[in-house]
Each structure stands twice: as structure tokens, then as C-alpha cells.
């Protein structure tokens, strides 16, 4: 189960499993973001390369306008995936 929404503070909230069957839904959501944004991983249990691809595409698009995604509250297992992919080089992770 995967969900993506905006919380009361305007942060993007990811929850559940961000896998290859969820990329269309996520891409549609992230395509509407045009300013710098914080993505909260607190309720996300899992991400694979498919989810990383959606985040990377968004980051690259925003970067052209000097904007960026900031990623917060990542669990250690997901943080490890970002480290192995070296995505920690292109995202600000808190």
C-alpha cells in the first residue's frame, strides 16, 4: 500500500511502499510541484529504484530553476538505499 499527500505544513508525505507499481501515481503528484519542497519519509517503509527515479526526475527539473527537494525523517534502511545509489550526493537529507 502506498500513498502520497500534502500534510498541514505543506510537506509532501510519503507512506507505505514506493515500488514500481506506484510510479505513475507518484509522478503525477510530483509533476505538480514547481517550488522547493520538503518530502517527509516518516511513514515510508520501503523504496526501490523506481521510487528513486521519480524523486531524481523531480529534483533535476526543480534544479533548473534553482529549487530543490529536501528529504526528512528517512528510516535507516531507506537511508542505506540512498547511500548505495549515491543519491545522498544530490539530495539534502535530514
Amino acid at each position, binding site marked *: *500500500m502506498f500513498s502520497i499527500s500534502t500534510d498541514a505544513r505543506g510537506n509532501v508525505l510519503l507512506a507505505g*511502499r514506493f*515500488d*514500481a*507499481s506506484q510510479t505513475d501515481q507518484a509522478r503525477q503528484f510530483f509533476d505538480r510541484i514547481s517550488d522547493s519542497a520538503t518530502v517527509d519519509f516518516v511513514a515510508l517503509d*520501503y523504496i*526501490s*529504484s*523506481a521510487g*528513486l*527515479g521519480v524523486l*531524481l526526475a523531480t*529534483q*533535476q527539473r526543480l*534544479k533548473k530553476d534553482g529549487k530543490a527537494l529536501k528529504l526528512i525523517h528517512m528510516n535507516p*534502511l531507506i537511508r*542505506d*538505499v540512498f547511500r*548505495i*545509489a*549515491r*543519491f545522498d*550526493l*544530490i539530495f539534502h537529507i535530514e
Partner: protein
Amino acid sequence: MHEDFHKDLRSLDAVFEFLDKFALRERLDSKAAYALTLAVEEFFTNIVKYSKAKAGMIGINAARTGETVTVKLEEETPIPFDVTLVEPLHVAVSPAARTPGGLGIHLARCMLDELRYDYEEGMSTITLIKQVREGNV
């Protein structure tokens, strides 16, 4: 444990359910369970997207013997594709500058202990091996 899944990304929820049951039964820790789930998803997705046999099923077999967990993905296909021969990802290059593709296999390779490929009489088998500590929970 063995189960067959339709060659479709919509099968992923059922694949995850199968792997969750296996991890629980074998008392795998969260790190080992994550690694196996991710590796299975990456190869399952690759088969769905790129297999020459578009229809059909993917069989997943998962077993633990002592400290070794072995998961096999089996598919009937007319043309073999040896995943162990895929060029390594150039991780020294920033993700933003990389040629697209190959990230999933890179992640799987890094998180597994061994990856094997066999093709015999039209049956393609990807074998994922992960070492786990005895009594891991």
C-alpha cells in the same frame, strides 16, 4: 515456499505479501528482509518490462538453509538474458549525470551476497543469495 505470479506489475502487492510471509516464517531481520524484497522487485520488474515472453507467469521460490537464504525467480522464455553480465553502474558518476538504467540491478547486487543466472530448456532462473545470521530476528 513457492508461488507463481502473473507477469504484471500489478502482481507486486502479492509478491510482497509472499516475501513478508517468508521473512516472518524464517525470522529474518528487517535489513535482510528489505534486501531480499528490493532485489526480487528489481528483477521481477525487469522481467515484466523486458522479457521476450510477454505473457505467462513468474515463479518465485524462497528457502532458508542455516544461514543462507535463497530466492529463485523462474520464467519460461525463448531468449536468455544473463543478469550477471549487466555492466556495473558507474557509481563514481553523480546520479544526475548517469546514463539512465541499471540502478535497480546495482542496488540488488550491493544488497545481496551472490547473484546467479541459469538458462536451461527454455527456463530462465535468477538466483538471489543472502547470508543471514543464525537466529536472526
